[in-house]
C-alpha cells in the first residue's frame, strides 16, 4: 500500500485546482466541478477538503488582491504543490495498475 491516500472527493478537488492553474479559489473550484462533473457541492464541504489538503501539504494558498466585489474580501488562490502533484501522480498510477490487472475475460463476458 502506498503511504498516501486520497479520498475520491479530495482527488477531484486537487485535480480541479490543477485544471484551474493559478485561478483556483473557492467559488471558481465549485463552478468548475459543477460544470465538468455536474456535481453540486456546498462551500462547507469544499472548504473542509481544501484546508485538509493544505494541512497535508498537497496544496499551497495565497491571498489575491482586494477587489470591490465579494464584499471587499480577498480571494485565496490554491495551487497544487510539488508534493501534491507527486501524490496525484501516484494515485493515478495506482488506479492504472488496478485497471491493468483486470483480466480481459471480464470485459469480454
Amino acid at each position: 500500500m502506498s503511504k498516501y491516500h486520497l479520498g475520491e472527493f479530495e482527488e477531484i478537488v486537487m485535480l480541479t485546482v490543477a485544471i484551474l492553474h493559478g485561478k483556483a479559489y473557492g467559488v471558481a473550484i465549485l463552478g468548475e466541478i459543477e460544470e465538468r462533473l455536474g456535481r453540486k457541492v456546498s462551500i462547507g464541504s469544499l472548504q473542509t477538503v481544501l484546508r485538509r489538503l493544505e494541512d497535508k501539504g498537497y496544496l499551497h494558498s495565497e491571498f489575491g488582491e482586494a477587489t470591490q466585489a465579494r464584499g471587499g474580501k480577498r480571494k485565496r488562490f490554491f495551487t497544487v504543490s510539488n508534493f501534491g502533484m507527486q501524490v496525484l501522480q501516484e494515485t493515478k498510477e495506482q488506479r492504472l495498475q488496478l485497471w491493468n490487472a483486470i483480466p480481459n475475460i471480464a470485459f469480454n463476458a
Partner: protein
Amino acid sequence: MSDKPQPSALLLRFFRWFCHPDYLEDIEGDLWERFEILVEDMGPRRARRRFVWEVLSLVRPNLIRSVKDLYPYNPLPMYKNYFKIAWRNLLRQKLYSFLNISGLAVGLCSFVLIFMYVQHEFSYDQFVPDADRVYRVYQRQEGNTYLGSDYFALTPAPLSRTLIKEYPEVETATTFQTPKYLINYKEVGFWEEGLNADPSFFEVFKFDFIQGEASQALQDPSNIVITQSLSRKIFGQGDPIGKTIDVKVHNQEKRFTVTGLIADLPRESSLQFTFVSSILGSGGYKRDTQEDSEHTWENNSYHTFFTLKAGASIRQLEAKFPALLEKYKPKDEDFPFNISFLVQRLSDFHFEAGINFDFGLKGNRQYIQIFSIIALVVLLLACINYMNLAIARSIRRAREVGLRKVIGATRGQLIGQFLGESFLITLLAFVLALLLVQLVLPLFSAMLDRDLLIWDLYQVRSLGGVLLIILAVALISGSYPAFFMSSLKPHVVIKGKLGRKLSGLGIQKILVIAQYACSIVLIISSLVIYRQSEYVQNKELGYDREHIINIFVQDAQIRKKYAVIAEEIQKEPQVVSLTSSDALPTNIDSSSLIEQGPTDSTQKQEIAIYRNSIGYDFLKVFGIKLLAGRDFSPDYPQDAEKRVIVNETTLKALGWNLEEAVGRKFSRYGDSIPSTEIIGVVQDFHMHSLHQPIEPLMLFLQGDYFRFISVKVRPENLSQTLNRIEAIVQAHTVYPFEYSFLDERFDQLYKTDQKLGEMFGFFTVLSVLIASLGLFGLAAISAKQRTKEIGIRKVLGASIESIVQVLARDFMKMVAWGFVLAVPFAWYFMHRWLEDYAYRISLQWWMFALPGLMAFVIALFTISFQSMKAARANPVESLRNE
C-alpha cells in the same frame, strides 16, 4: 448598490463568530460571491434560503474556531500576572500589607460579630412550624405596676378553652405553666425546668415527635413528654417510652409515664424546657377550670398561646376581647385595676421585654439598630484605611500602571486589576477576621448575654450575607484607588514626574479627618456613658437596696392573713424586719393631687403628688431617713386616718419649713378644709429610675390592700432563709411564690445603659485601633516620600526635633480638624442621650478635651515612631543617590 440583494447580516455575523479567524476572510468572500451567483441563478428568495444551508455547511470541526479562541484574547496569563504582581506587592511591602489587612480584619471582625448577633436575634422562634400564626395572650392591668410594668404574661386558666369554643378565628389554643420539677429517678434527684401543659400543646407548637403520638401524648394526667437530653440523662440509651418518672412538685410526689420523645429545643427558642407534663393532673388547674366555680377567672397563673386560622384577622379577634372580659370577669371591688387582654405574635415574642412573669431571653430592637450603625461605621473606617494606604502607595505602582498602559492595557482592565487586588486583600483580611471572631466571640456573647456560636456563621443562610460583605468591602475600599490609578497618564508617569501632588493628598486628608472624627465621637460617647453609669451606680438613692426580699402578692388570702404570716416570718432568725406596701421604693407610681396655699384664696394651686400606702416599719426596712417627726406606729391608732409622712420635695412644693411642717395640715384635692396631717418628713429618695426627677410624695398607713411584702434579712445563709420564707408563704396560698431582691431590681433599671456602655467601649477600642493603624501607615509613607527633603534639611542644619515637628505637623492638623468636627456631633448625641435622665452628669469641657487629647497622644505616638526614624537617618544615605 443598495438595491442589490444582500446576504443576511445575521447569518454573516454568525459565520464570523464561529469561523476560524485564519479562514475568515476568503471564505466570507466566497460566500458573498456565491450568494451573487445564487441570486442570478434562482432569484433572491430561493438564494437566501440556499444561503442558510451554505453557511450551516461551514460548521465543521476544522473550520470553526477552537474554544480557546472564542474570545478575542486569552486572559488567563494576564490574570496570572495580576495575581503575581499583587502577591509580590504584598510581600515587598510587608508593613503596609500588614496594616491594610489587619485594619480590614478588625473592621470585618466587628461587622461579622454584629451580623451574627443581629441574625441570631431575628432567628428567635422562627423554627416553630406556622410561627406566623402562633400568638399569645397577655394582659394589661392598668396601674398595677410591678417591676416597672403593668403588663402581665399570665392569664386565667379557662381562657384557652374559651378561645377554642367561642372564637371561630382560633384554630386551636393551649395553656401551660412553667414549673420546676425535682426529678427522682433511682434515687438521683435533680431539678429540671419544663412545662405543665394541656393536651393541645403540641397542636399549637407542632414539634416533631421522635417517638410517640403528638395527639395522644398529654391526654392522661400522668403523661409526660421529654426531650432527648432528659431522656439520656435518666434512661441513658434505653427507650424511654412507657417508662415512669417520679417527680416532686411543691412537696407532693407524682409519677409520670413517658408518652413521647422530642428533640432538644434549639437555642433560638424562647420556650426552653426538658419536659412537658400533662396539666390535667394538677390540682390547681382542676380548681381553676371548674365550670361551676366563680373564681376560675381570678387566678392569673397560666400562659395562653393560640394558633390563628389561616386568613383570619388578628385585629378583629383582639377587638372581641373586651366583650370576653365583660362576660367572664366582671368588675371586682377588691381589684381596682382596669384589665385588657392583648395579643402578641410569636415572632415579636423575643423583642417585647417588660412583661411581668414572662419567659425566654428578650432582645432589644434599639440595641440592634445602634450596634448595626456602629458596625457599619467601624467597617467604613477600615475601608477608608485601605483607600488611604492604597492611594499613598500609588506612587510605587504608578510606573507599573504606566507601563501596562503603554503595552496596551485598557482602563477597564486596570480597574479590574486593582479591584481584583482589593478583593484578594479583603479575602485575606476576612480569613484573619474569622480567626479574630473566634477569639472574641466568647467575650462578645457574654457581653450580650447570648450564646453565639462560630458555627452559626457557616450556615448556608449566613454565607450569602458574608459573601456580600466581602464583595461590598472590596468594592468600596478598592474603587477609589482603582479609578484613581487607572486614570494616570502614561507619558507623565513613566517620565517619573510624580510629585506629592499625585498621591491624592486632598482626599486622603479628608478621609483621615473623617476617621479621627468618628473615633473621637466614639471616645467621647464611651466616656460620657461610662461616667453616667458610674454616677447612677454610686448615686445615694436615699434607701437601702441590699438584702431585701420582696414578695409579690396576688392572692387576697395572703392579705387577709398578713398578721399571721408576718409574725411567722419575723420569728425566723435571719430576718431583721419586714413590712408591706403597695409599691416598692424603686418605683412608686400611683399619684393624686393636693392643694397649696390658703384654702379660701383663689391663689390655690394643685400639686401632683405620688402616693404609696405602706405598713409599719416601711422606713426601717428600706433604711429611709426620717428628718423630722415620727414613723407610723401601732401606738397611735389614729395613724391610719388622714395622717401622712411626706418627703422634702413636698415641703418645698408647699413652701413650708422643715421645723414647722410636723403637725401641720394640708388639703387634698376636693377637701373643704385642710385635714391631712403631716406626722413626719423623710429625706428625699429616688422613687423612680434616675431617668426621672424626684417628685412630691406622701406615705399613708395602708388599709388591707398591699402588693408587696418586703423582708430585710441578714446576708448569711440567704438561700436557706429564702426557702423558709417561701415555705411560710406557700402554706397560705396556691399562687406561685414570686419574689425578687431589691438590688436586682435596681440593676435591672439600668441594665440596658450598662450594656450600651460596655459595647461602646468595645467598639471605641476597635475604631481607635483601626484609625491608628491607618495613620501609622500614612506616616511611614510620608516619611519615606520626604526622605530627600529631610536629608537636605539636615544638611542645612535642622535639628531632629524640628524635623519631627515638620513631619508630624500635617498629621496633627488632620487630627485637630477631626476633633473640631467631632465635638459638635458628640455633644449633640450625648446631650440627647443624657436628656433621658433626670439625674445626670453635666457635659463638661474636659469630657471633650480628654478624648481629644487622647486622640492627639495616640496619633502623635503613632506618627513619632516613623518620624523619629526618618529624622535620625544619616542624610548621606538619602542624598547619595543623585
